[in-house]
């Protein structure tokens, strides 16, 4: 197992002094004014110092890998090692990087087209392998960079440049997909909810294994207001529910609503009108059985009254691909002939000509 290098006292001190500026590169940010990406970048630049301090990671051990899309310009703005790769393939570059360098902290930034259209397969394979990557999916339900075609998360019937009569395909639910792909950490947050966003970034950083975070991100040019109906400050408390491990599912501005199970069906109950808190569903992010997380991933589909969950849906401890492979390598390197070049060349059946 590649041991984490010991940090020198100077390095520790250096890390202690990290601030937002340290993670801000000299490149001009080029998103449209008003784009939700700005908020995510700001939270990331603010949170990284804390993450580094908490985990003792020097900045140079952080890498950000992205695909192509508006969102994927992210690495240019982070003052770390970065890789703006090709469309849909970020998880592959990130996997190779992490597997060969387990001591790095590797983030992936991707969009709904990048991760779920062209890149869907790489995403699910990175997740099922539990490669220790932190994957941030900026879901704006549209192709931003190519100027506004519908994406796999766009609602059916969406009129866009490429679908003048409305799209006919059904959208995919990123969280359901991540859960089906055996993701060990699954979460959701919203660009504008900066505090919650920051907290989720920190949780993801702490997780050992693939962390999948869907971030609802407003594209004010091509899909403005896509999440307004629940993400708007005015309605957010009533239309979303913040998941908390071990806590009963309560939401609403007045904390007056709860979620109860009726068989397998979630229903909203009115706590103000006598419903019993003890009958409520209790969130459990640690259960290996994916049923609860699956159910929550589609909570808002149950009926008009069920809210959109945000927070950590699942957080499981499972050995990572990079860790397990590293162990195999370490074990192999204990063999007496490990690294013996002469033995390498002379292996197999040999004979000698005098």
């Amino acid at each position, binding site marked *: 197992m590649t041991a984490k290098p010991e940090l020198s006292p100077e390095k520790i001190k250096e890390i202690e002094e990290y601030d937002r500026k340290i993670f801000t590169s000299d*490149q001009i940010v080029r998103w449209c004014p008003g784009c939700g990406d700005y908020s995510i970048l700001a939270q990331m630049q603010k949170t990284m110092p804390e993450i580094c301090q908490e985990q003792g990671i020097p900045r140079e051990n952080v890498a950000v890998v992205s695909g192509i899309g508006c969102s994927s310009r992210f690495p240019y703005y982070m003052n770390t090692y970065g890789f703006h790769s*090709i469309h849909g393939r970020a998880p592959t570059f990130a996997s*190779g990087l992490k597997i060969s360098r387990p001591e790095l902290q590797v983030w992936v930034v991707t969009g709904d087209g990048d991760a779920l259209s062209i890149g869907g397969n790489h995403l699910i394979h990175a997740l099922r392998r539990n490669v220790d990557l932190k994957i941030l999916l900026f879901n704006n339900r549209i192709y931003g960079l190519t100027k506004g075609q519908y994406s796999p998360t766009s609602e059916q019937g969406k009129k866009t440049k490429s679908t003048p009569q409305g799209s006919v395909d059904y959208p995919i639910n990123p969280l359901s997909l991540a859960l089906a792909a055996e993701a060990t950490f699954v979460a959701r947050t919203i660009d504008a909810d900066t505090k919650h966003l920051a907290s989720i970034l920190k949780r993801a950083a702490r997780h050992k294994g693939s962390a999948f975070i869907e971030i609802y991100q407003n594209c004010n040019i091509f899909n403005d207001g896509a999440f307004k109906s629940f993400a708007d400050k005015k309605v957010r408390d009533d239309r979303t529910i913040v998941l908390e491990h071990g806590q009963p599912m309560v939401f609403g501005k007045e904390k007056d609503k709860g979620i109860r199970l009726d068989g397998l069906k979630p229903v909203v109950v009115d706590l103000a009108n006598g419903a019993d808190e003890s009958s409520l569903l209790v969130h459990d992010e640690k259960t290996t059985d994916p049923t609860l997380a699956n159910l929550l991933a589609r909570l808002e589909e149950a009926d008009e009254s069920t809210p959109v969950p945000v927070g950590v849906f699942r957080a499981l401890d499972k050995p990572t691909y990079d860790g397990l492979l590293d162990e195999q390598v370490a074990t192999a390197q204990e063999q007496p002939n490990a690294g013996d070049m002469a033995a390498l*060349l*002379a292996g197999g059946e040999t*004979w000698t000509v005098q």
Partner: protein
Amino acid sequence: MVVETQASPLQDGGSGDSDPKVVDKVVIRFAGDSGDGMQITGSFFTHNSALAGNDISTLPDFPAEIRAPAGTLPGVSGFQLNFSSLQIMTPGDTPEVLVAMNPAALKVNLRDLVRGGTIILNSDTFRKNNLKKAGYTEDPRETGDLEGYNVHAVPLTSLTLEAVKDTGISHKLAGRCKNMFALGIMLWMYDRSLEATLGLMTKKFGKMEEVFEANKKALTAGYNYADTVEVFTGRFQVGKAKLVPGTYRMLMGNQAAVLGFVAGAQLAKRPLFYGSYPITPASSILEGLSNFKHFGVKTFQAEDEIAAVGSSIGAAFGGAIGLTGTSGPGVALKAEAIGLAAMTELPLIVINVQRGGPSTGLPTKTEQADLLQAMFGRNGECPVAIVAPQSPADCFTMAIEAIRIATKYMVPVMYLSDGYLANGAEPWSIPEVEDLPGIEVKNATDPEGFLPYQRDPETLARPWAIPGTPGTEHRLGGLEKQENTGNVSYDPENHQKMTLLRAEKVERIAQSIPELEVHGDPDGGDVLVLGWGSTYGSITSAVNRVRDRGGRVSSAHLRHLNPFPANIEEVLGKFKKILIPELNMGQLLFLIRARFCIEAEGLNKVQGQPFQIGEIEQKIEELL
């Protein structure tokens, strides 16, 4: 093969009881059903020949199906072996001896056998049912099909069952020993030591005692049978070749590549990362490398070829030797990512074990038709380096060379092997570790004035600064880069400049690769046969034959396809005619014509099979 001089036949062998005839070289082919154990039979004979001091070249021929129904034509598996007291470079054009374990094996292989050759067939299998499966309406032994051949019909199955009946082994397993009975006959015919093969057998089956015993009995019985029955009139001896002294092992191309990349990474003192997705005939490189974790090698079986190359580029970004491997269709899938590696100037190496195309083509057959894909198969102006090993053992050497080029010039390298090299084998004189070339690799670590696209004045390589290094943080990507800073740039002049720089960098590789050598008359002559890759053995052998007859023909073989060796134009200019034999429709020919505007001529074969020496020989004669 490493042969000191072209020796004349040696006469120093031969103490056999029936006075063996000494011959220079023999080509034999074992053929049978997939389940008949032909590969192991062949490799046992190969090893025996090695110990006998012969020069050797081998080639297996697997069926395209995993296990086609027993007894059918698609189910036939073969193993061809050329062993000689002279220098040889190919598994031989046409076998002189064919061991056919069933009618299907006979049917598939008969057309390759030399007229007058020897056939040993398992007469127990020449039953109605098997004949029908092989597409024979009549027994070929009775139709005259085998006239002119020296046919030995031996009831191999029943003799074997008889021989092993006391070992207590099951009937099924007993029947499987018939290949060893056939091997016994062959060992006798070529005056070979039983002991040597028994020794190898002990290693192979030692732990399974019953199986070992049965196989031993079958082998010995076959040997004794041949010695006794007096039907095998001819007995032959192939003397020692004058090989350079040393310790040898047989090396198949893919195995050589595995060793070469492991060794090369060690020489470069960088970890080796191999991202790959299984595909014939490249899979055995993935399988081989997965056994080298004790050299720190990490293999990653990716979900597809794109993920495979992506992971390798990611690893190269992280400071590893980023290696990925596949065959033609897989290279097509990697094209976009190779472009990214060219733009980000990372040391990526892409192995293409070429096979018959286009599309899925002929997956188990060989071809050299991906050279222009390697040159041009990406969008935009996107030059990469290209190397190609010329023999199975050369796969080792060129692997190290690929690593050297990739790391020295920070450039993607395509490594073009093919199905013939992958599975063909030849003896390899095991080098001393100290004799391997050194590979010096630097990583940028000094933040002072660091710029990710500032170039080395000699090689034009940009610095390789890897994550984890404080102060050299930077961002790579597929958008055009500004000179020096590496920032995204849409500036027109910068784009032109960077395009030229990327091209020039690849051209400069020529400064550190060996000159093109002429085999034959370095000062020129009538015909130069120019080749690349796996055709080396056939070309050189053909040239030697014609030269032996006094023809003024020479040859030169390219192992570097992009850039070409610096002296290539000069070499070409010395000859009246240039002949370029290729297992494609003329791809190197195309490059040579475009580059030097010379009227070279092609000899082109796309049949899924290597050149026969005779085919090239004939063409040379035409040109002389």
